[in-house]
């Protein structure tokens, strides 16, 4: 079934090279060739899309803040005065103080790093793992589909709380990475199901059948024909998941297995504000970290939309 021969045709070789260039992570595939690949086309489109530019700038800003929070916040996020607990916004403390009397503005700025790292890395992990497992299951079908799908089912059965407590209390490592790992390990089945379904549908399309009849290789069909047509649901899921993962991190922290102080994160602050219904009396402690989280999710939803549009040849 795997037909390496077809790669020998010059045309096929070019395309595969272009596709490989992109899967390796470089968006700038060789443009010297006359026939530009779908991926280079997409990149060309994206650069002119205002939605993409706005979202990219927003994400850049968030990344810069994550790396150097000191740029816009001069206080220490751990320096808290219980005496000022739940005080509202005031000059010099624009966002007010939380229950412990910590400055909400400083904590919101410093919270970006952990939250965005967890959200972004876990989403990437889930998307890659889920798309590969689900995509392969849907594409190959037969025995491998059965095996991978049932494996997905078993993973799906593990309750998140149980999995998180077991893994995180056994791993002695602390910090962000175990949390990312656990979230990714327990959340990929969802994406796997979706991408399997999409690949199964995309496989039926006439152009895929045509490509197969023309003797296209498996990898070529997958990357050039099926993937672009199956990727939209994965992007949509991933952009929303990014937000839920940031919140999930807080759930884990509240269970005592997530991020540990002195790490600051939006999730932890949001759940601290909801725990004890503090938000009823001091809404500001919930509003600011929640707004920061919304802004991040918005940026990625916009980015996702733009990328999806760019990948859709029907739009051109």
């Amino acid at each position, binding site marked *: 079934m795997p037909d390496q021969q077809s790669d020998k045709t010059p045309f096929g070789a070019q395309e595969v090279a272009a596709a490989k260039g992109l899967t390796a992570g470089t968006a700038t595939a060789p443009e010297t060739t006359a026939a530009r690949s779908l991926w280079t086309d997409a990149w060309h489109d994206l650069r002119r899309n205002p939605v993409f530019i706005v979202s990219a700038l927003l994400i850049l800003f968030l990344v810069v803040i994550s790396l150097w929070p000191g740029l816009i916040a001069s206080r220490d996020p751990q320096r808290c005065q219980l005496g000022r607990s739940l005080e509202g916004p005031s000059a010099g403390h624009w966002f007010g103080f939380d229950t412990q009397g910590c400055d909400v503005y400083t904590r919101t700025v410093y919270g970006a790093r952990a939250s965005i790292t967890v959200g972004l890395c876990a989403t990437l992990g889930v998307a890659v793992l889920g798309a590969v497992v689900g995509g392969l299951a849907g594409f190959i079908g037969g025995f491998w589909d*059965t095996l991978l*799908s*049932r494996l997905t*089912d*078993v993973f*799906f*059965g*593990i*309750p*998140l*709380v*149980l*999995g998180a*407590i*077991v893994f995180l*209390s*056994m791993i002695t490592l602390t910090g962000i990475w175990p949390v990312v790992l656990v979230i990714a390990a327990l959340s990929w*089945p*969802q994406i796997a*199901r*979706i991408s*399997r*379904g*999409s690949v*199964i*549908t995309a496989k*039926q399309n006439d152009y895929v059948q045509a490509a197969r009849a023309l003797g296209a290789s498996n990898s070529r069909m997958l990357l050039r024909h099926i993937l672009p047509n199956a990727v*939209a*649901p994965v*992007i*949509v*899921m991933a*952009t*929303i998941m990014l*937000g*839920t993962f940031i*919140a999930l991190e*807080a759930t884990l922290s509240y269970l005592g297995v997530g991020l540990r102080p002195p790490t600051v994160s939006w999730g932890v602050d*949001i*759940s601290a504000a*909801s725990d004890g*219904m503090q*938000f009823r009396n001091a809404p500001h402690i*919930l509003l600011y970290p*929640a*707004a920061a*989280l*919304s802004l991040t*999710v*918005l940026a990625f*939803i916009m980015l996702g939309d733009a990328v*999806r549009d760019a990948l*859709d040849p*029907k*739009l051109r």
Partner: protein
Amino acid sequence: MGRYVIRRLLQMIPVFIGATFLIFVMVYALGDPVSALFGDRGPDPATAKALREEFNLDHPLWQQYLLYMGKIFSGDFGTAFNGQPVTELMERAFPISFRLALVALTFEIVLGIVLGVVTGLRRGRSLDTTVLILTLVVIAVPTFVLGTTGQFFLGVEAGWIDPAVSPDARLDELIVPGLILALVSLAYVTRLTRTSVAENTRADYIRTAIAKGLPRRRVTVRHLLRNSLIPVVTYLGADIGTLMAGAIVTERIFNIQGVGYQLYQGILRQNSPTVVGFVVVLVLIFLLANLLVDLLYAVLDPRIRYA
């Protein structure tokens, strides 16, 4: 088709065994549950030992597992630490969670798909933006906050609902909890439908259908929607499990003793019979839901065939 279904049903056996073993090992890895039964007081070794014997905790892991599996096949799922048989807990919890999931699923299907289609057809319009903002709110504000706020306004201020659901958990009592539970999934369903619809509006067959002069409604429902539903159906199928098992927060807010609650309690108290029993039934539900989804693929896209 019939053979396909039978094959799928047979596949449940290894998954069932694999999942039970995995969960059993995980609960075992949590450590010894007995000392917690003594509260803040140090356990006295003799009583602790007697309790371990009672719950079969004094055997090595594989023996515990075999003992447990042996009992399962005779219908005995063990006993929770408060002396209640796990089957009794399951008989109560599963129907309640099933109803709750059903309500939530209805919201997802009706509200999610309608909103998804409308926003997909009118991208960039004000309704699209409003739905986007609501989506952001649902993602960024924890369910707990939305739930308790809704409960307070509807239950206390307006007096339209009872804040706590009665032990019978009638369908009409589950409407508000069901909506709260559905919120995050609603965001997924809406956006998945929206993207799918937006993509398919430009497909050739839609253009053909419109060119043929078919009425707009017919094009939308028969051609556009049907072809856009595959990712949505997949998501919904996978979501049934999440709705049943992951309703911990919603169940807590509305005092519903469903699967999520029992599972969470079981995990915190490290009671393996409860956890394994519940997860086993959940895995079976996932498997059936997935089978259903796979069969639906063939209905939605006639090109997909199962041998």
